[in-house]
């Protein structure tokens, strides 16, 4: 993962300092703005790869900040952090121009995974490729063909979308909620780890008999597809 330049706009000192430290430990460069106005100014000037915006900020609230930036044609990918977790709060956040929405309290691994997924969209427009390849696994987005080596793998439509999303974010951690949101398009809490079951089904189809699997479980975070040989 290349280094990201992250601007954190968060008024809670402790939370801000924790995020700053955590992102820097991950090798990213992070700045902190303690209120909405300063955050807005820095987001306009600085060349950031990603903005992390708390929804409730002094001087200028998070949603107004984002919609003002979008009006000024600042299209930096933005993740909203919020204590408001109702379904319509999320919709409002995304409508204001946010690209992703995370409800407090959250796990840092979840935030990191989402931020990396957002930044990837900016750094490498992988979304436009039609052929994804990880090791000897190939997925053709146009013909919906999936092959391991020269053997074709038959996938159910949902399994195909699951694999497609994982391969689009190859080398990145993808969390269970990200999968539920992006593959199934739901944001609710499924109680049981339903995603795990779907992953293990997929794994049985693409990693069967492989010495080093492609689909890895990242403890306490989620899943990642990568070529184990590299």
């Amino acid at each position: 993962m290349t280094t990201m330049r992250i601007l954190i706009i968060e008024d809670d000192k402790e939370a801000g300092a924790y995020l700053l430290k955590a992102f820097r430990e991950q090798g990213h460069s992070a700045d902190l703005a303690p209120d909405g106005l300063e955050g807005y100014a820095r987001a306009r000037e600085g060349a950031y790869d990603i903005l992390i915006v708390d929804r409730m900020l002094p001087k200028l609230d998070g949603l107004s900040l984002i919609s003002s930036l979008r009006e000024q044609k600042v299209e930096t990918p933005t993740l909203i952090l919020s204590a408001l977790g109702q379904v319509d709060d999320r919709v409002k956040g995304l409508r204001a121009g946010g690209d992703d929405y995370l409800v407090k309290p959250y796990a840092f691994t979840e935030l990191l995974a989402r931020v990396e997924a957002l930044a990837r969209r900016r750094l490498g427009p992988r979304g436009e490729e039609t052929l994804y390849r990880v090791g000897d696994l190939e997925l053709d987005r146009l013909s919906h063909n999936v092959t391991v080596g020269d053997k074709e793998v038959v996938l159910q439509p949902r399994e195909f979308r699951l694999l497609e999303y994982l391969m689009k974010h190859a080398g990145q951690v993808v969390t269970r909620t990200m999968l539920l949101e992006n593959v199934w398009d739901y944001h609710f809490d499924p109680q049981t780890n339903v995603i795990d079951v779907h992953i293990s089904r997929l794994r049985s189809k693409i990693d069967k008999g492989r010495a080093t699997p492609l689909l890895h479980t990242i403890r306490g975070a989620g899943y990642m597809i990568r070529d184990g040989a590299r």
Partner: protein
Amino acid sequence: MTALARLFRTTAFKLSAAYFLLFSVGAVLALGGVGGRVEAVLDDQIGQNIDAEIHRLEELYGEGGLGQIFLSVQRRVRSPGGSIFLVTTYAGQNIVGNIASSPAISAEEGVLLETTYRLPGDNDRDHPALARLTYLPGGFRLLVGHDVADHRVLRQILHRGLGASLFWLALIGTLGGLLVAHRMLERVDDLSASARRIMAGRLDERLPVSGAGDELDRLAENLNAMLARIGQLMRGLSEVSDNIAHDLRTPLTRLRNRAEAATRDGATPEEQRAALGAVIEDSEDLIRIFNALLMIARAEAGQAGGAMSTVEVDEIVADIVELYEAVAEEQGARLTSSIEPGLEMSGNRELLAQALGNVVDNALKYGAAGSDGEVGVAARRNGDRLEISVADRGPGVPPEDRERALERFVRLDSSRSLPGSGLGLALAAAIARLHQGSLRLEDNAPGLRVVFSLPVTRTPVAAPGSDRT
């Protein structure tokens, strides 16, 4: 004095004052109008008589000169009737007549005048009369008139009647207005006093209803219904916060114990790491419980948990079945579905998915344990309602426990050994209520069938006073 001032400011008093004014104007117009008409008619008749008399006397004068008039007037004077005659010379000297004098004798000719006259031998009293002056050839003045003392009496009677009726009108109107205003004020004061007592904390008191069925009663009844609704919401709120406090205490204690274990002396780094991992898991459980409780509380308070829009229920059901089908397969059970196409309703997609997910999850956990378990999901339209049922072949829930199973944190004995927060069904039921629908548990003989019954269209506002359903 302030009481009086308050009385004057009441609506009832203002109304009665306005009516009093209106009636007075009406009475003046009506009585005055009738009086005026009567007088005009009488005056008109008198004028005509006078004209006829003058005409006749002029003819007599033409026939026989002053002598004839003299005779005629003398004859007339003797006959009663209130007519007055006076003939004078041009200079004003009386020649013949039944009156002594009248100022009308020197007035303009040919005009009917309201004037006075004096009788001979009684020079001090003026009598009212209508009269008309004519010049006779030869320079004589002829005044013919009629006494109108009777008319004046009539006029006075009319005026007095008007005054008297105005007086009574004023008296009765004011007293009535004061009485009505006073009674009104008393009742409004009662209402205000009750309202103040309620505000001061006597929340069970209600506003007095007199039983008269008038607008004040209607107002009091509606306010009472509002108070009842507020009371209900407040009880619900305090119940919810009590429950939240109670129910979060257990997992919080567990969390705390684990954290303490991690910091205890002599713990190896591995033990600490494991304890911290458990702490994170516990806190995630807590967050999950907290979110579910919050959603239940919101649903019970009747707040929409998000924007409602038209949602394709058949797709949601199919998605949930597809999502959990893998889980069923893994535990050796089967999840089957029968979904009527084209099912739509006004609702919230995420919440409905959450509710259905919870129920399916429950059915798989408790109703399809062991191999060859089967859970059937069916969705169909039934009139103006959608029915989604999730049926299993498990141990089921005895009828006496069905109501209780939908409550928060209730875990029936049969499921106590299995993991779960006890919130799944309570949340599903709350979401159903939020969609103005219901969730019921039925006997699947054997097994349990959970049925969502949801209206296709939401009624915009709950009727006042209606119980939350």
